[in-house]
Structure formats: structure tokens, C-alpha cells
């Protein structure tokens, strides 16, 4: 089993006003991953508004999205045999319908070379 971090990116804030249907759809998706026993960590949602970026030279800017169109709205970790399985899971995430995307990154073990 390998662990993969799924990073969810949106250009609009998915946490602002989700409809009950959207909430249900997201919950169904996550439960479906759990039902396959592939959920390692259900992760967290990340705020779009309570956000700061700290830079060298005592510079603090608002939000992560001043320079990029997309911001990270959440993350979770799945456990699968291959990255293809993780891709298949991500492809069913309802975020894709709302113009968002999912980045998949293998979690490296301490002695593992990249």
C-alpha cells in the first residue's frame, strides 16, 4: 500500500455557499473512498478567506491567491496499491464538475528516493 495526498484546487470558494445537494455529493464521494477501505486520512477543508502568505523581508500578504487563479481548498490522503487507483478515485470527485482540479502526490517514505 502506498499513500497519496490529494490536493483540491478551486478558482471559486467551494466552502462559501454549498447547496445541500453539493454537500451530499461530496460526502457520498468521500464515503465511497472509505467504503473501499482506501481512506488513510480524511484531511481537512482549507479556508479561502482566513489566509495569509509570509514572505522574506517581513512581508505578509493576504491569501494565497493574489498571484495565482487557483487556491487549495482542501486535502486528504488515500491508500492504494498504485497511483492509477488514486487517479481513479480523484476522477470521481465532484470538484471536477465545478471547474476545480485534484493534484495527486505520492507520500514518500523516510528512506525513499524521489
Amino acid at each position, binding site marked *: 500500500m502506498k499513500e497519496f495526498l490529494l490536493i483540491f484546487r478551486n478558482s471559486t470558494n467551494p466552502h462559501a455557499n454549498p447547496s445541500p445537494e453539493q454537500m*451530499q455529493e461530496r*460526502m*457520498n464521494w*468521500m*464515503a*465511497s473512498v*472509505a*467504503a*473501499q*477501505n482506501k*481512506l488513510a486520512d*480524511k484531511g481537512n477543508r482549507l479556508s479561502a478567506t482566513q489566509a495569509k502568505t509570509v514572505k522574506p523581508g517581513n512581508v505578509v500578504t493576504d491569501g494565497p491567491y493574489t498571484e495565482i487563479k487557483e487556491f487549495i481548498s482542501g486535502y486528504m490522503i488515500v491508500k492504494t496499491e498504485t497511483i492509477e487507483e488514486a487517479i481513479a478515485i480523484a476522477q470521481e470527485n465532484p470538484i471536477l464538475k465545478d471547474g476545480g482540479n485534484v493534484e495527486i502526490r505520492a507520500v514518500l517514505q523516510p528512506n525513499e528516493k524521489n
Partner: protein
Amino acid sequence: MEEQNTSFHQLLPNLFRLEYTKMTAVIGRHFGLQHIAIAEDIVSETFLIAMNSWAEKGIPENPTAWLYTVAKNKLKDYLKHEKIFNDKVSPVLQAASQSELPEVEFSPENINDSVLAMIFAVCSPINPPSSQIALALQILCGFSITEIAHAFLSNPETIRKRIQRARKQLREDNFEIKTLEKEALISRLAAVHTTIYLLFNEGYLSTSENQVIRQDLCSEAIRLALILTTNNITNTPATNALLALLCYQSSRLQARLNADGELILFDQQDTSLWNQELITQGHHFIINACTGNELSKYHLEAGIAYWHTTIGNKNKWENILSLYNELLLIDYSPITALNRTFAYAKVYGAETSIQEALKLNLSDNYYYHSLLGYLYSENHVQLAISHYQKAKSLTQSPAEIKAIDKEIQALKNLL
């Protein structure tokens, strides 16, 4: 004589179930858990004597009191023998407690306390949870190795070894079961809950070949859970949630069987047979469970069971599905995954749920194929039949086989 024999053969297994653990607990408390085998021997011998004597002379007026008296005498004999041994062979090492023969008291109170003490002793954190449960099922509930294996979806040899290891661990642990310390009680409560939960499921899901539903096991589980509510330390929200769950589930015991002793699926049950008194009790415990912030898996399962007891609510399955969704996030199990998919099918239809079901990939699981059989039967009759046949090959329960045969026959009639 014929008649008496029949009732004798019915009575003894029931009494064994009910009394074996109580007597073992009470006597076991005298010796400490290290010597639990002595208590088990004394109680087993008592039942052996009962079997022979009752077959010959008939059942005594008060069989339970008869058993207690014989067990007491057996214990006295044993202690006398021990005393002689100690007096003659090792007078120096003679334990003070053995200089006087203690009177064993089978009062309801002492039985309650002893069973509680015994439950917590057996569910020692020194053993991994799965071993704690297997051991508890054997010592506290009189389960056979095969039954435990079924409850664990494992094989008997694995369980036998697991129990042997666990017993050895307990002996080395040298845990005293005479007092009930708060810290020990709290740290072991979750393991105790799991044991009771499994015990109930063994009765409720009825894997036994002889009785389709072993109502006494369900009652035993409720009885053990009720013992937990009599103690301030163990009367927690999770304990109450567990009890609510057991009451809600038990309310359908009558409706789950037809006159021929066959299982009736939830959809086809006569709801007028649901036990409203147990449902009301469930309400009582679920309300008690909602004090504080604790949200255990039993809260979620009790919620699911609650919705099952409602009739004609249009959001019923949506609510059940979201509770299953939450449950899966805190506690994955194949059966929860399968049940969640069933609820999904109730909300979104069988056709769209087939993909959800296939993703579970539990191809060795009876319920998995049974579920696929159900989902396919709407539009893919051949596939449905083949999954039901696969399911049939994966179960030994006559009731389950019968139920599946019925489904297969109905599907074949459609072809």
C-alpha cells in the same frame, strides 16, 4: 418420559447459556483470573452432573438453584482438597484465605458484580482487541470456537490459537478481578462495548445451524449492557448509545422470522410485529446517549437503527445513507461498506449503485455477492443469478441458503 427428555434437551442448552458465565464469574472471583480454568472446570463438571442426573431422575423443580448448590459443593470439595494438599505438602505456603472455606454467594447482586468484574478482567488491554473479544466470547458468553470464528469472519484454527495466546497473556498479566478501579474500567470500556456488540450480532445475524435466531444471545447482550448502566463509571453516553442500538435492532426479532423459521428481509417484514416497547426503550437510551459531546460509532449505528424503525418517512433512506457515510469515516468494516451501498441504492436506484458496489471488491464475502445479486436483479437477471449462486457457495447458514434459493428461483421464473 419421552416428553421429559425433549424438554430436558431444550432446557439444558438454555441454562448453560444463561448460567455458565454467571457461575464462572462468581467462582472465578474467588480464585482470581489466573486460575479461571479452575472455575470453568467446576462449572463444567456441574453441568455434566446435571446432564446425567436430570436424564435419570427428571428435571428438578428449580434447576438454577440446583445448579448453584451443586457448584457450591464442588467448590467446597475442591477447596478442601486444596487445603489438605496445602496442609500436608506445603504447610508453610498455606494461604490465609484457604484456612477458612469461603461461602460462595449466588445472590443477584453478587452475580451482577462478579460478571461486571469478570467482563473487565477478560477485556484486558494486555491483549490486542481482537483477542480480548475472542476470549470474552468464550469465557463470558460460552461461545464455541466455530461461532467466534464466524463472528470474526475468520477460521476456527486461527481463533483457537488466538484464544490460547490470549489466555496465556492474561495469566501472565496476573490481574485481580476483585475490585473495580475507575481507571481500569474506563480504559477497557470500549473493548467491553465491542464484545457486547459482537455478542448481539452473533445472535441477531443468526449463524447457528440449530436455531435461526438466538434470541437468548441478544438478550444476553442487552443484559450485559444493562449491567454497565448500573455502575456510574460505566454508564457513559456510548454505553447508552449501544443499548439504544440493541433495543432498536431487537424490536424486529419477531418480524425477521416466518412460521417456518425462515428469515424475512427487512423490506418484506410485517411492521405490526415490530416490538414497540423495545423501540420506546431505544428512544429512552438514545436520549440518555445524547448528553455530552461524545459521538461514538454506536451513536451513528443507533441513529441508523432508529431510522429503520420509522415507517413512511420520505427522507428515511437519505438519513440512513448520511449516517452510514459518517460511520465509514470513523470505522471502516466490510459489512458497513456493504450496508452503506445498500442505502445508496435505496436513494439513487439499483442501476447507479452497481458501480459503487463493484468498487468494494469483496469477492470472498457472502454479503457482497448477495448485494450484487439484489442490485443486478432489476435489469440483469443472468448476472444476478450468478452472484446469488456465488453467495450461496460462501455461506453455511441454512437460513441464508434457503433465502438465496428463493431469490434464484424467482429470477429463473423471469427468464
